């Protein structure tokens, strides 16, 4: 099921539950806008029923639900029209539409209708011989490739700025090249927030379960993003598809738009080329059915997993650099700083937001970060110290 199909289904499902909400949508959405002829037929009949019922509605009646407009009467009306067999419509199919949709209290049929309309106009523009963005279908366009490269470079640049703002570390390469760390135009070399690695980092299964739980919680209760958006980043996810889904929810949150499974599925298709696919609507439905547990705890597990992965990766990178005979000390330090930037950043987010207190260890890293970055007295790091990095111990911290 693609996002457009998901939007069509959820729109109809919500409108069958609360047919009164069709009125504003019917001003701009036509049955022909549905890609699925069956969905267009359902919409046309539902719209006609709503118009008839609203003409007879009593004053003061709940406008969301109209007497006589429900799934059963809709099915009977379509059956009487002889269109059941034409589009393979059935009672279970109508029921499935209702079961697929978010709860009427949380649903935004206006948003789903807008998605259906956008998709319809996009099809018609293309049919009219005009080019139109096709999202993933046109992903091989050179301009798209260049845009993706630009995005990647911008990400690298932002990561550098975040590191500098969190730690206040000067450019260590310049320090080694002769510039004093205490020069007037340089910030003092100081220790950033301690990088702590949990004694018991979560295993892959725990991380996977926690990531699913976080996404399920966000889809079920988007207000959680108010607490999570500064703390848990998409890059903390090990599962790239869950990361894309979470990123899409974050982007909707940043724009102040409605968040549910339908809007997230639609949003993530917009960024599919840049970030890869998110989880499917079917997977969203399955996840939210079993959403349970404390989201804050699950977020902690996700971040702990991220710190563990980043630390191991950074340690490997530092060791490779330190043992590379062709690299100058400045290069090694630069590599070290870069490799650990993500670790420190993630750890800073964990510990600055009142997260579960962590236990100090460093077991996942053969190179303690502070030792790699500076001497105990706060002076710039020694190249010899970096070159003396011991080899990693296998499976340490597991």
């Amino acid at each position, binding site marked *: 099921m693609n996002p457009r199909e998901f939007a069509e289904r959820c729109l109809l499902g919500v409108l069958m539950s609360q047919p009164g909400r069709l009125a504003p949508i019917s001003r701009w959405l036509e049955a022909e806008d549905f890609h699925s002829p069956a969905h267009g037929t359902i919409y046309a009949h539902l719209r006609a029923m709503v118009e008839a019922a609203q003409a007879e509605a009593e004053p003061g009646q709940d406008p969301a639900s109209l007497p006589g407009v429900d799934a059963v009467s809709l099915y009977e009306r379509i059956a009487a029209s002889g269109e059941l067999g034409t589009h393979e419509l059935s009672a279970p199919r109508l029921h499935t539409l209702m079961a697929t949709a978010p709860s009427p209290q949380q649903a935004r049929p206006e948003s789903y209708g*807008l998605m259906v309309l956008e998709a319809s106009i*996009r099809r018609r*523009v293309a049919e009219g011989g005009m080019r139109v*963005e096709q999202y993933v279908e046109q992903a091989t366009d050179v*301009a798209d490739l260049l845009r993706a490269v630009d995005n990647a470079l911008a990400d690298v640049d932002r990561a550098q700025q975040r590191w500098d703002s969190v730690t206040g570390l000067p450019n260590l390469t310049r320090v080694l090249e002769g510039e004093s760390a205490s020069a007037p135009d340089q910030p003092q070399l100081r220790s950033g927030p301690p990088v702590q690695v949990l004694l018991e980092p979560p295993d892959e299964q725990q991380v996977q379960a926690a990531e699913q739980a976080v996404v399920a919680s966000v889809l079920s209760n988007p207000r959680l993003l108010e607490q999570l958006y500064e703390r848990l980043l998409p890059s903390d996810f090990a599962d790239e598809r869950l990361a894309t889904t979470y990123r899409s929810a974050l982007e909707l949150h940043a724009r102040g738009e409605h968040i549910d499974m339908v809007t997230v599925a639609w949003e993530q298709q917009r960024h599919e080329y840049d970030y890869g696919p998110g989880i499917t609507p079917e997977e969203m439905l399955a996840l939210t059915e079993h959403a349970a547990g404390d989201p804050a705890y699950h977020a902690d597990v996700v971040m702990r997993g991220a710190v563990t992965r980043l630390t191991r990766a950074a340690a490997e990178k530092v060791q490779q650099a330190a043992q590379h005979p062709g690299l100058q000390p400045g290069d090694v330090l630069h590599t070290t700083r870069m490799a650990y930037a993500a670790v420190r950043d993630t750890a800073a987010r964990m510990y600055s937001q009142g997260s579960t207190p962590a236990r100090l260890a460093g077991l996942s890293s053969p190179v303690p970060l502070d030792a790699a970055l500076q001497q105990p007295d706060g002076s710039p790091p020694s190249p010899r110290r970096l070159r003396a990095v011991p080899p990693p111990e296998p499976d340490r911290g597991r």
Partner: protein
Amino acid sequence: MSETTISAEAMRGHIAAGRALPLLPDGAPGPVQYAGRWWAIPADAHDYLPVTDASAAAHLDTAAQRLHQARQDARPGAERDDGARR
């Protein structure tokens, strides 16, 4: 390049500067309103050309009006005019 041709890149610049309004949120290469008329890239071309066919332009006008109304209804915080609870 003739005066009645605009490259997709230049049109992106017009969109970014607010001088042009794309029909769809994707922006270029989709149809765009610029200088009081519709512009679009034909399926087999790379540059924008004015939409000279009156019927096609009318279709785009209608689509733009429908999208505008839909976005108004779907915008964050929009109140339903039927008074029902969200």
